[in-house]
């Protein structure tokens, strides 16, 4: 077993529908411009005057920054407490409203999928729906992410339990 994650929750310890409040973060002008300089130097993320004339209507965070800040909340609030084993990707990412200077965003994660990895019997695939809202309660970003997670026992051991008694039918085939 991986000593780094030994004391964390594993695949078997999670359940579908589990909802985690991930806390919030406030986005400053300096943060927006700092991120934009490094990863998204479009004029409407760097310059207030240009931003006012753009579709965003004012200086707004790069969508990638909103995602990165959400990921930070997810790491601190959830992924660092489970045996997370790497991100597989994400889908249906929607930037619904711009995140403007001074906005406070808060995130919630819900477990919407839990399945065994096909290639690695000692791992599972965890699907999380992420919802990010601003201080007015408006959704600013939603996405679904898929992450690998270590399992306590490989899939085939699960199907043939070592217990000396008969488990009720179905118990031996947990997700």
């Amino acid at each position, binding site marked *: 077993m991986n000593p780094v994650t030994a004391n964390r929750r594993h695949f078997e310890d999670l359940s579908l529908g589990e909802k985690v409040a991930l806390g919030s973060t406030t986005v400053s002008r300096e943060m927006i411009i700092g991120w934009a300089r490094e990863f998204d130097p479009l004029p409407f993320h760097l310059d207030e005057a240009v931003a006012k004339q753009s579709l965003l209507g004012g200086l707004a965070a790069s969508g990638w920054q909103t*995602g990165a800040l959400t990921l930070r909340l997810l*790491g601190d609030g959830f992924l660092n407490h489970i045996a997370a084993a790497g991100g597989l990707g994400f889908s249906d990412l929607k930037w619904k409203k711009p995140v403007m200077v001074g906005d406070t965003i808060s995130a919630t994660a819900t477990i919407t999928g839990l399945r065994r990895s096909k290639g690695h019997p000692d791992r599972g695939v965890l699907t999380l729906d992420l919802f990010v809202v601003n201080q007015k309660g408006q959704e600013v970003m939603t996405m679904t992410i898929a992450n690998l997670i270590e399992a306590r026992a490989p899939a085939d051991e699960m199907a043939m339990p070592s217990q000396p008694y008969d488990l009720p039918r179905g118990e031996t085939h947990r997700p």
Partner: protein
Amino acid sequence: MTRWFEDLQGGDLFDLGSHSFSAPEIVAFGRLYDPQYLHVDPEAARQGPFGGLIASGWHTASVGHRKMVDALDAEADRLRELGEQPGVSGPSPGINQAEFKAPVRPGDTIAYSLTVSGKRLSNSIPGWGLVFNELSGVNQHGEQVYRAEVVGFSKLRDYVAPWHVRLLEALVRLPFVGRLLRRQ
């Protein structure tokens, strides 16, 4: 910023250049945005599923975005030199799907590219179109590490607003009426 919506065609391929990921850079990004041991702690990462430090997928994707913005800028400069007016790209409404297909390790060099996969007029914003792009990142061994289906707004060059939209735009610019209209 780039080519006009009207000039973009499905299948257009843009080389976005490459980026080498160093260990300090991977850790710095991880500490700020994705502080999992796989991305911030080389010692602990050695015990993990990848046997060493790997970049946050969000880092790989964000660098890919930067490479795209730089390439759009370069394309705009090229068009200006030809005496043409470059197009205007807008924000992105989202990403349909993104996959981190293989880990990015310290010292890896990722070559990014963008292929236009389709376009259509925006239903919600007159005068703008949506461009569907396929972004790809391939490492120095020719292995694809990242792919994403990204959507972006692009301004129409040849768009003329209908008369009632132009009237509304003119009214919005008036001092008193405009303020009332904008409040709606």
